[in-house]
């Protein structure tokens, strides 16, 4: 198959001693940063992005792949050992994983998470190889109206589906969109929302937004409410699993992967839903349901695999359509654009070597992760002994360093602080953070496609309708919006008045 040839060539490009060293560095650094609480893979990639600025594109991508998977593994290590998930998708892992650790089975929990992540990552990457070219073929047929409609689905999905308070989700989305508007209008060259500040003319960098909202925002929030809590003991132990553990884990791994990949690939899918689904499924199918809640290994194996598969899945729309579906993908996209690489359906035709090198490095990063981190897990655990003041000071330090390095301008630091305050405000008032970041990421693309659609029809609104794909997308949007109203009319309890859980940890870090 043609794809296979390309992939093999990609491997050839990547498998040099120098590049392997880079991959190793990426995995190590990514895991180390991912272990730190409050930092998810998106944040890890964002904080470590400045390291890559001086590198060649291929080398940078290899580093990314390592950081990407490393960050995810680090996050699950923390959730298992310490019950402090650094990102929403790890919440589920923490349920069973931490119980296992407390029961003296930390080694098995870590092993099943690592091996499951490896298997899911590998299968996921294989799926990318198989699926992406087909998606690209389909994507090339998409016109501006279809794109616009799909993005609308993403908008509606994040603000109205996830989270219980739709008005807050919508507010969050609008704030994000407003931030996205800042800068020069790409068609007319008009400055918008720049208020005469020249540094804003290029718009506000996605990385600065992500780092400001997540890192600085988290730092400020914690500073305002720092809890002095006695340090727990971390159970230490080299990961390994017994035969029973293997028997129970591997079906869960496969099922988790099946859940994770599709959800990762659809806009606004994310990783939270598939991990929950995987957990529920494992609980139902398990021969030992009574163990759930006390440390059932399937409850770690499935969700971890789902998490990684979902991460692999997000790469499909990112590479094929240029459509980032979560913060991590958005940052990787921003990084690619920094090299002048325009992701989209044409990426595969324009830069095939780069894409296949990326995919090859995903395989390699994934493998290195397993080989390296199984023996090193106790070492990562030691990182958790760093006193909190140094931890958060370090996060702010690297955040400032990265933000400055983007443009070499102190203005970005002021911007970072402002965004940090915004991050503080959304945590304070329980606004979901995902719609905000999706709004920032997708606003330029959405507006571009929207205006192109109308341009093609000469201003007639029917230009937005496009082809059948767009109709389906619009139908979904309408359905999602009307659903609660219908539910209300039917007498079931829906809508905002009842509970407002927006802003719980599950919506924060991505």
């Amino acid at each position, binding site marked *: 198959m043609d794809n296979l040839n390309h992939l093999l060539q990609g491997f050839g490009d990547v498998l040099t001693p120098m590049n392997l060293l880079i991959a190793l560095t990426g995995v190590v650094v990514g895991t180390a940063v991912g272990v730190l609480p409050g930092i998810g893979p998106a944040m890890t990639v964002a904080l470590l992005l400045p390291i890559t600025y001086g590198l060649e594109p291929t080398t940078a991508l290899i580093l990314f792949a390592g950081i990407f998977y490393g960050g995810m593994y680090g996050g699950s290590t923390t959730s298992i050992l310490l019950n402090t998930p650094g990102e929403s998708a790890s919440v589920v892992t923490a349920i069973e994983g931490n119980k296992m650790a407390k029961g003296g089975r930390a080694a098995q929990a870590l092993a099943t998470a690592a091996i499951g992540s490896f298997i899911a990552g590998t299968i996921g990457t294989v799926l990318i190889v198989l699926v992406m070219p087909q998606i690209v073929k389909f994507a090339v047929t998409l016109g501006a109206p279809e794109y616009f409609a799909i993005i609308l689905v993403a908008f509606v999905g994040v603000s109205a589906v996830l989270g219980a308070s739709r008005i807050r989700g919508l507010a969050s989305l609008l704030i994000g969109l407003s931030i996205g508007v800042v800068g020069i209008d790409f068609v007319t060259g008009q400055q918008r929302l720049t208020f005469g500040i020249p540094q804003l003319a290029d718009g506000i960098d996605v990385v600065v937004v992500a780092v400001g909202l997540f890192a600085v925002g988290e730092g400020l929030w914690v500073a305002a409410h720092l809890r002095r809590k*006695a*340090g727990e*003991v971390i159970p230490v132990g080299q990961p390994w699993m017994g035969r029973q553990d293997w028997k129970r884990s591997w079906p869960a791994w496969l099922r988790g992967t099946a859940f994770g990949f599709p959800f990762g690939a659809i806009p606004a899918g994310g990783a939270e839903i598939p991990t929950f689904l995987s957990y529920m499924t494992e609980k139902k199918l398990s021969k030992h349901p009574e163990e759930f809640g006390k440390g059932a290994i399937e409850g770690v194996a499935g969700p971890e695999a789902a998490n990684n598969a979902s991460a692999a899945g997000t790469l499909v729309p990112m590479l094929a359509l240029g459509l980032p579906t979560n913060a991590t993908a958005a940052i990787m996209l921003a990084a690619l654009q920094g090299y002048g690489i325009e992701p989209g359906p044409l990426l595969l035709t324009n830069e095939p070597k780069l894409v296949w090198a990326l995919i090859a490095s995903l395989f390699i990063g994934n493998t290195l992760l397993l080989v390296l981190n199984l023996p090193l897990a106790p070492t990562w655990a030691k990182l958790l*002994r*760093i006193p909190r003041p140094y931890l958060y000071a370090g996060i702010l330090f690297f955040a400032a360093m990265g933000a400055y390095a983007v443009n070499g301008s102190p203005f970005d630091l002021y911007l970072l602080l402002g965004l940090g305050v915004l991050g503080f405000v959304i945590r304070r008032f329980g606004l979901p953070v995902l719609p905000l970041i999706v709004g920032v990421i997708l606003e330029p693309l959405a507006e571009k496609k929207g205006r192109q659609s109308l341009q093609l029809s000469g201003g007639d609104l029917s230009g937005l309708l496009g082809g059948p794909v767009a109709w389906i997308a619009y139908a979904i949007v309408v359905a999602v919006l009307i659903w609660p109203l219908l539910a209300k009319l039917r007498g079931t309890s829906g809508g905002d008045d009842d509970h407002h859980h927006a802003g719980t940890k599950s919506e924060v870090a991505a």
Partner: protein
Amino acid sequence: MTVLVGYVPNSFGEAALSAAVAEAARRQERLLVVNMSRDDVLADAHRAADDQLARVRRDLGELGVEAEVRRVEEGSDAAEALLEVATEVDASVLVIGLRHRTPVGKLLLGSNAQRLLLEASCPVLAVKPV
């Protein structure tokens, strides 16, 4: 009057505990075992878990020693916490485990033992594991 021992769940703490038991017997005094767990870290290697403390209690009970086992969970400085307890109970001796540190190690990481030796108002018994 009480014999105060700073306990950590490793060989140094165990050595200190044995020495403290002997000392309490010699002085005919009560024993107070204190484990300090820092509150500014997520994971403290010196924290004795509940089951470890329970084991200590049990062992002391089997030995017939009149003892109290406490865990201090506030504060970020073990030496300071121990000194506070020493003042509070008017300890007659403070027993600690001693670990060899290189000069550089002492410079960079400080030394609880050194501070206790210098600042305690009562005699200090520093013990090394066998």
